[in-house]
């Protein structure tokens, strides 16, 4: 087993640059999730690691060996595709054995590996079936089996769960996790689903428009988003962002819609700066009117069961920022004025122009 290092990788299609300067070192046995909205380049990056896409500039190394010019088969990787890409005319057994047959391994070796993978994935009874006779989840498992039998240095997953229904997705997610714990193979995993990213990743790479917005452990990305993009992408509903200006020698923050917040500690260097205040909906709580930091008027409420999502807006004229809060259902009023507060440690500040996090 081995790590993958991606160094200053760029990608252009003709004159259009779709990816700029991505670098990440994936450690041996690590599970790294690349997450971002459609078209952010995450699949392209994965395909570059696989060797299905050329690298415009930069370097990709697997197990310390630069693989830029190696064919996919020589990179010692295995890939699982979104639509599974099983060979429709071959049985489950042959689908898994095909790559090994090409490597001219002995029949006994192939059989042992396939049986072992089938055992891990609970496919032993299905080995004679054709892919079209399998359910979506079973096909997904066969696709993983095809990857496992190769015993590669790196697993590459390209949105493997997005063709499954919601329930099966949750189940396969935990199976994937168990599989990784068992095999400890370095894994690169692409998804647009932030829940998948949060639950599976040891580290995640949040991408936007061909750039790496943030690299870090899921909890770190959640609690310290590096930019407003990450703040909006990770977490559901997205983080509330309210524009304002820091005043009073860096002690307070005033936003449109009658929002006045005291900074946890004075930041004289920020005095007069335009910033975005970020607070997650789940960190807002109701409070007495005099303690309130935000006083949105309620627009509508989504009931989720024990919790409710309350959407409102700041400012009496209705032009202030929109605010969402996740509150316990029992304390939610249908309409009117809702005084809300948040703890000082739950507060994030971003630069208004660049969207970058202001550390503090």
């Amino acid at each position, binding site marked *: 087993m081995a790590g993958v290092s991606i160094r200053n990788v760029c990608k252009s299609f003709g004159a259009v640059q779709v990816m700029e300067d991505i670098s990440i070192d994936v450690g041996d046995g690590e599970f790294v999730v690349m997450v971002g909205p459609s078209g952010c380049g995450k699949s392209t990056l994965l395909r570059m690691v*696989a*060797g*299905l896409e050329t690298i415009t500039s930069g370097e990709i190394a697997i197990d310390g060996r630069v693989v830029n010019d190696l*064919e*996919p*088969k020589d990179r010692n*990787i*295995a*890939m699982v*595709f*979104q*639509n599974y*890409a*099983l*060979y*429709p*005319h071959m049985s489950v057994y042959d689908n898994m054995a*095909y*790559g090994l047959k*090409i*490597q001219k391994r002995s029949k006994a070796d192939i059989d042992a590996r396939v049986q072992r993978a089938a055992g891990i994935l609970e496919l032993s009874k299905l080995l004679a079936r054709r892919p*079209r006779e399998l359910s979506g989840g079973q096909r997904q498992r066969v696709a993983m089996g*095809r990857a496992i039998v190769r015993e590669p240095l790196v697993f590459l997953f390209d949105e493997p769960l997005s063709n499954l229904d919601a329930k099966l997705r949750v189940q396969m997610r935990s199976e994937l996790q168990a599989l990784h714990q068992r095999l400890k193979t370095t894994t690169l995993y692409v998804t647009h689903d932030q829940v998948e990213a949060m639950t599976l990743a040891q580290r995640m790479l949040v991408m936007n428009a061909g750039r790496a917005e943030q690299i870090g452990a899921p909890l770190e990305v959640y609690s310290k988003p590096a930019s407003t993009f990450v703040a909006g992408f990770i977490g559901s509903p997205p983080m509330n962002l309210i524009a304002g200006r820091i005043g009073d020698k860096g002690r307070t923050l005033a936003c449109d819609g009658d929002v006045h917040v005291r900074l946890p500690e004075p930041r004289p260097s920020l005095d007069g700066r335009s910033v975005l205040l970020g607070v997650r909906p789940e960190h807002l709580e109701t409070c007495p009117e005099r303690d309130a930091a935000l006083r949105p008027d309620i627009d509508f409420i989504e009931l989720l069961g024990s919790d409710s999502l309350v959407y409102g807006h700041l400012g009496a004229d209705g032009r202030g920022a929109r605010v969402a809060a996740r509150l316990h259902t029992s304390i939610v009023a249908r309409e009117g004025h809702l005084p809300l507060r948040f703890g000082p440690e739950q507060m994030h500040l971003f630069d208004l122009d660049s969207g970058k996090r202001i550390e503090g």
Partner: protein
Amino acid sequence: MVENRPLLNFVSHAVLIIGAALVAFPLYVTFVASTLTFEQIMTVPMQLTPGDHLVENYRQVLTGGTTTGSRAAVGGMLVNSVIMALVIPIGKISISILSAFAIVYFRFPLRNFFFWMIFVTLMLPVEVRIIPTFKVIADLGLLNSYAGLTLPLIASATATFLFRQFFMTIPDELAEAARIDGAGPMRFFWDVVVPLSKTSMAALFVIQFIYGWNQYLWPLLITSEESMYPVVIGIKRMIVGGDAANEWNLVMATAMLAMLPPALVVLLMQKWFVKGLVETEK
């Protein structure tokens, strides 16, 4: 339609039965005529029940042709026709599937240009280019040969186009999965593309078998020896001069023989044929 109306049922069945009878009746007359003697067939009106000369008539045409018209044995012609009708579809399918594979899966300069070159020839049927083709075949010394009979009919834009369309429906990920599995292009072709194309190939085979079997104009031009005639030409050459001079019973027996192989191919391959036209197994 789910409604149940007895009158509608009756009318639609009547229409279908009349239609089927209209198509089948000439075939039946052909069959009856092929079992009669020359004298019986010349009486007016001709009888519509089978006679007792079936074996004699068929033996006569298979071994010796007619006595008044062409004396070439139909047996040999059937062999020629079978060779033509087999070589043309097999050749067509092998060449088309390879060129379609190249056009879909390889990036080479002028790829689209070559595709359109092939595509444009769809507009040029054999008849339009028959004189230059004849000149080429004659200069190559291929008159009166199986090569001459089949080669010019093998190149096929239709089949290339059909395979191309089919290949484009095969997901790209399949080719990529094969690449990661370590399969080279030809390995991918044999292990994945060809097995997936089986039904398309069967459908094309049926269509092209009939196409090859029914060739008339081209063999007429390039064959001058009786030993090279296909059976369709044989029928024509049995008919000489006036109505009374022709042994219609023998001509009809030959016609029956000429109808059999395509009918058999369609019947035997019907399942595959329909699958290839309607089903995509992916």
